[in-house]
């Protein structure tokens, strides 16, 4: 049987991949977004695993909402990306450098 810690290890691995991806990715914003999604996936795994092993649905409900919010986030994120593409002609991380102090 799959144990709780297996899930937790899996989720933490996903989480770390997401996090590392964010920090080493210096080129593409879409990749950034995908890394964020990875983090959320890790969180969801966590919640569901806990929920399952605790016998408590709150975690699953939470996941439901996280998914929704993630979707809304993606919607807005893509919209912003589109805008950025329009004003900049590119969606590389490098182009977001006009704001400096």
């Amino acid at each position, binding site marked *: 049987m799959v144990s709780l810690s297996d899930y937790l290890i899996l989720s933490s691995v996903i989480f770390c991949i997401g996090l590392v991806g964010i920090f080493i990715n210096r080129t593409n914003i879409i990749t950034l977004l995908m890394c964020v999604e990875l983090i959320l996936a890790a969180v969801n795994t966590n919640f569901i695993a806990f929920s399952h092993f605790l016998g408590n649905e709150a975690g699953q409900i939470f996941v*439901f909402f996280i*998914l*929704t919010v993630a*979707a*809304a986030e*993606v*919607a807005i994120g*893509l*919209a912003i990306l*589109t805008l950025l593409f329009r004003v900049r002609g590119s969606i590389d991380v490098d182009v977001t450098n006009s704001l400096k102090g």
Partner: protein
Amino acid sequence: MLENYLPIVVFIMLGLGFGAGPMLIGYLLGPSKPSEEKNSQFECGFPAFGDSRMYFNVRYYLVAILFILFDLEVAFVFPWAVVQSQLGWFGFIAISIFLFILVVGFIFEWKNGALEWE
């Protein structure tokens, strides 16, 4: 419970196999005589011009975004739908509020022309 999912895994594997297998067969059986002309991208009879990764209408994005949102609403409605007959009027009112807000958003999109497609 979980063993019910084993067939699913097997079927997905099979599905992938049914994709890969025939192509492999085709690759083995068919001839392979590539030429530059043959391998060039399709164009209506003249040499390809421009970048095929062209800009496309932002409406496609819009549809994608709307899809994400509405699909999620569907996902929210499903659990309710399963048990709605047992929830009684409380469930009805709750989902009404939910759908009402959804509809408000829908009207907003509609009025803003997000659903127009020229």
